[in-house]
């Protein structure tokens, strides 16, 4: 296929990359602090450690999509030395919702740590523990379970009409609506009404590190849990609920993580591990392998979205109506939140006077869904952006001009009542992107032999935290300038691999003019670091980064004012030193003097809650070739344009974009975790789950729009989630344009493409 690429894909040399701008650290290409350990194999993930006196737990998973356990015979497992088994019969009868991250959110609880009523292949029946993993796995194989197999529900549309509800609560669906404006009037007076139904797939996060968690009972009734997670305090409240412990007795420690993408955001194995450790009075390590991580953790929720658009005679948007079904999988988890997050995006990309968004999360006999990079944003943008291209084609509008006439402008408000859009630079993203990509000539359809070549693009928006939503947004941070002038920043951050800790060090280093190798930024430990609502919702740079900047400013001012008091002469802070009268003092000297003579430590604690939640924006352009004989798509070239306000670390921003595109290309073309009529997954491991590898990736050009976002540190805003949002619809739009098809069921596998071509 590479012979078809007209542009040779050249790998760039480091010196060819765009340099940073006018700051000391902000916007520069600063190496990540954990890099040296990672390239030498010294960065130990949870499963790399040795845990004294610990039992290693493996979960006995249901092989059936829907079944009740009649009986379980563990005798042959228990006959092995050191083996213990905990079954659903031992487990506390406490229901929880793995996607609830704050007490009182009232996310419907329907999951137990272990269950005798299996609701998907991979549901947790028992926990088998042994002194080592190999013994535990052998013991698990010796347990005999007698299941009464029941009818599964696989189709989310069918879940509402299934003869029997899957859960004892009898609830068939969890509805949600968002509405504003006169939708009915708009549709009645519209010159054109267009409608499409778009289906997006269930996707495995595929963090390279499979899930693992460690729990140990500690003195004074404290349960200590080590987990590579994203929301420490969310895990804490779920574990506390299951164990019926006060939060103060549940200590959660974030440990090194080999990727998450939302897959380690919800409480998956943590409650089970904590309960086992407390029950057995032993440390417990639960490890999983890839099969278990695919079947028994979380997936991106599949969605079916019907969207109707009302337009006036000039192609102006009057109103949109949505009917969306989100497949929660076996347990509700965060799926209803994902549904509502989808709805919240519909009023923030285009100027649209009226929207009616109605949807529901439904439970099926499949792997539970939950958070996944973008939290509904890739799904809703696939729905709206594929539909927008199709309606343009049907009505004869140019897809660029149509969007430019309808996209939001900087400073627009959100008619749904959510936070204002801020410095929303989507129009600039589109116009500059179209020019740089050469949209006018690339969008033409080339046809030779069995090949068709064309291009497509898609626009999108994503948030920057929770301000203006039903959720609160609070973070705490401490900055202490130490006696030698080095700095510790205590946070409850979670390093996910994206460089969060280094980015925050850059912000603090910029404020204090302290070299980054003298700054340490901590991850979270619920007993020693302050509260934070979690590394979710694209809030880390905009909210936590800004809190670190403000806190560092306060620490700087505290040191300056204390020094001024101490020496009684005008004092300024310059370039990492204090200028006291005519005298220059190093930070260390100043801190020591303020401590010993002034009785003050330079340690500032800040609680921060943002009052804004602007939009980040982006456009992706894809140039593709389709082989009409095999249905195989080659992505020839790619441009990503992102309105990021200001890059904190250019390498990290580009890294998020490259990785986001890799995930999005999979959503467009290859990645799908399907289930057959019996509820059996199509993929058990990576052999049947195809992600883009190095030779399949297109060359990627990145254009950053950096016009500053008020309220963000040095004008920065989010990139990590939005980076994957417009990829899939851009590719689908390109394929539909090249072939003249109207394919709306993702991913566009060769089989689906060949089928669509046959139907033309």
């Amino acid at each position, binding site marked *: 296929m590479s012979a078809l690429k007209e542009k040779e894909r050249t790998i760039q*040399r480091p010196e060819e990359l765009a340099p940073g701008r006018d700051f000391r650290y902000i916007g520069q290409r600063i190496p990540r602090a954990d890099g040296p350990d990672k390239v030498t194999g010294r960065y130990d993930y949870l499963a790399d450690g040795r845990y004294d006196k610990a039992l290693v737990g493996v979960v006995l998973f249901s092989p059936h999509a829907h079944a009740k356990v009649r009986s379980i015979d563990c005798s042959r497992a228990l006959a092995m030395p050191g083996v213990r088994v905990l079954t659903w019969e031992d487990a506390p009868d406490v229901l929880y919702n793995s996607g609830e991250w704050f007490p009182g959110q009232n996310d419907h609880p329907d999951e137990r740590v272990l269950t005798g009523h299996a609701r998907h292949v991979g549901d947790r029946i028992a926990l088998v523990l042994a002194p080592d993993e190999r013994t535990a796995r052998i013991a698990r194989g010796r347990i005999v379970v007698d299941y009464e197999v029941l009818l599964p529900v696989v189709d989310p549309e069918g879940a509402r009409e299934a003869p029997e509800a899957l859960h004892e609560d009898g609830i068939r669906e969890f509805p949600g609506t968002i509405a504003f404006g006169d939708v009915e009037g708009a549709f009645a007076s519209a010159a054109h009404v267009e409608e499409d139904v778009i289906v997006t797939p269930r996707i495995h996060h595929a963090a390279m590190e499979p899930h693992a968690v460690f729990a140990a009972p500690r003195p004074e009734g404290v349960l200590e849990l080590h987990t590579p997670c994203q929301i420490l305090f969310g895990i804490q409240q779920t574990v506390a609920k299951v164990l019926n412990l006060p939060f103060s007795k549940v200590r959660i420690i974030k440990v090194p993580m080999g*990727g998450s993408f939302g897959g380690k955001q919800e409480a998956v194995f943590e409650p089970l591990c904590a309960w086992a450790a407390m029950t057995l009075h032993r440390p417990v390590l639960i490890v999983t392998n890839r099969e278990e991580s695919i079947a028994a953790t979380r997936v991106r929720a599949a969605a079916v979205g019907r969207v109707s658009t009302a337009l006036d005679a000039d192609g102006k948007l009057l109103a949109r109506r949505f009917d969306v079904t989100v497949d929660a999988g076996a347990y509700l988890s965060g799926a209803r939140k994902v549904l509502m997050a989808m709805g919240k995006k519909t009023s923030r990309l285009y100027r649209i006077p009226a929207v009616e968004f109605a949807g529901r999360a439904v439970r099926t006999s499949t792997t539970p869904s939950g958070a996944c990079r973008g939290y509904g944003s890739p799904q809703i943008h696939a729905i709206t952006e594929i539909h927008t291209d199709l309606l343009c084609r049907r009505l004869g509008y140019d897809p660029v001009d149509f969007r430019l006439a309808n996209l939001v402008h900087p400073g627009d408000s959100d008619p749904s009542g959510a936070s204002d859009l801020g410095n929303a630079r989507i129009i600039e993203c589109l116009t500059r992107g179209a020019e740089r990509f050469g949209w006018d000539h690339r969008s033409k359809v080339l046809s030779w032999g069995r090949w068709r070549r064309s291009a497509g693009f898609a626009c999108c928006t994503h948030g920057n935290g929770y301000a203006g939503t039903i959720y609160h947004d609070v973070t705490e941070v401490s900055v202490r300038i130490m006696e030698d002038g080095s700095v510790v920043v205590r946070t409850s951050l979670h390093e996910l691999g994206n460089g969060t800790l280094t980015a925050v060090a850059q912000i603090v280093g910029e404020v204090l003019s302290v070299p980054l190798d003298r700054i340490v930024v901590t991850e979270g430990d619920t007993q020693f670091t302050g509260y934070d609502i979690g590394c979710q919702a694209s809030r880390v740079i905009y909210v936590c980064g800004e809190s670190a900047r403000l806190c560092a400013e306060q620490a700087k001012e505290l040191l300056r004012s204390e020094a001024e008091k101490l020496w009684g002469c005008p004092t300024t802070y310059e370039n990492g030193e204090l200028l006291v009268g005519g005298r220059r003092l190093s930070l260390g000297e100043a801190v020591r003097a303020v401590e010993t003579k002034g009785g003050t430590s330079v340690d500032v604690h800040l609680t921060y809650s943002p009052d804004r939640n602007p939009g980040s924006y982006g456009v992706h352009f894809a140039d593709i070739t389709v082989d009409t004989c095999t249905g195989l798509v080659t992505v020839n070239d790619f441009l990503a344009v992102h309105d990021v306000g200001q890059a904190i670390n250019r390498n990290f921003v*580009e890294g998020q974009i490259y990785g986001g595109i890799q995930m999005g290309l999979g959503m467009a073309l290859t990645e799908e975790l399907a289930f057959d009529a019996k509820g059996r997954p199509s993929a058990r491991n990576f052999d049947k789950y195809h992600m883009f590898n190095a030779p399949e990736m297109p060359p990627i050009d990145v254009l950053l729009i950096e016009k500053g976002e008020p309220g963000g540190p040095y004008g920065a805003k989010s990139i990590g989630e939005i980076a994957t949002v417009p990829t899939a619809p851009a590719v689908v739009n390109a394929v539909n344009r090249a072939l003249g098809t109207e394919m709306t069921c993702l991913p566009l596998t060769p089989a689906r493409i060949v089928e669509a071509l046959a139907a033309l």
Partner: protein
Amino acid sequence: MKIEFVVNGESCAAEVDSAMRLIDLLREELRLTSVKEGCGAGECGACTVLVDGEPVCSCLVPAVQARGRDILTVEGLAKDGQLSVLQQAFLDCDAVQCGFCTAGMILTAHALLMKKDNPTDEDIRTALAGNICRCTGYVPIERAVRAAADRIRAARS
């Protein structure tokens, strides 16, 4: 049975059985935990090590096959605390995010550069085809291998 082999330049001996894979031998017995298990099925490349200079998925190789072989893991790349050219290039090009695939990527690339000191860009991408990375989109990893190849050649001339 007892086998003898070389790991990272040092002679080793270990007791292995038929159920033990090379990855188990390296991780559990020798505590070389840079070797990661991402899929256990030879699909992701996270467990890549070099056996007599050839990259293999250590999750697919029975431990007994290490007998008499020369094995390299990423722990053996840095010499006297000095990172290899490739390791340094991974840092310089930001080719590491979560780090779980990194050791396998570096070893696969190391094997390529040992064989070809002037690989084409296509050679680099093809060599990395069996190593999955979910974080970086491979772009900075390819740059790191390219940069390392350039630097190694420049140092020779």
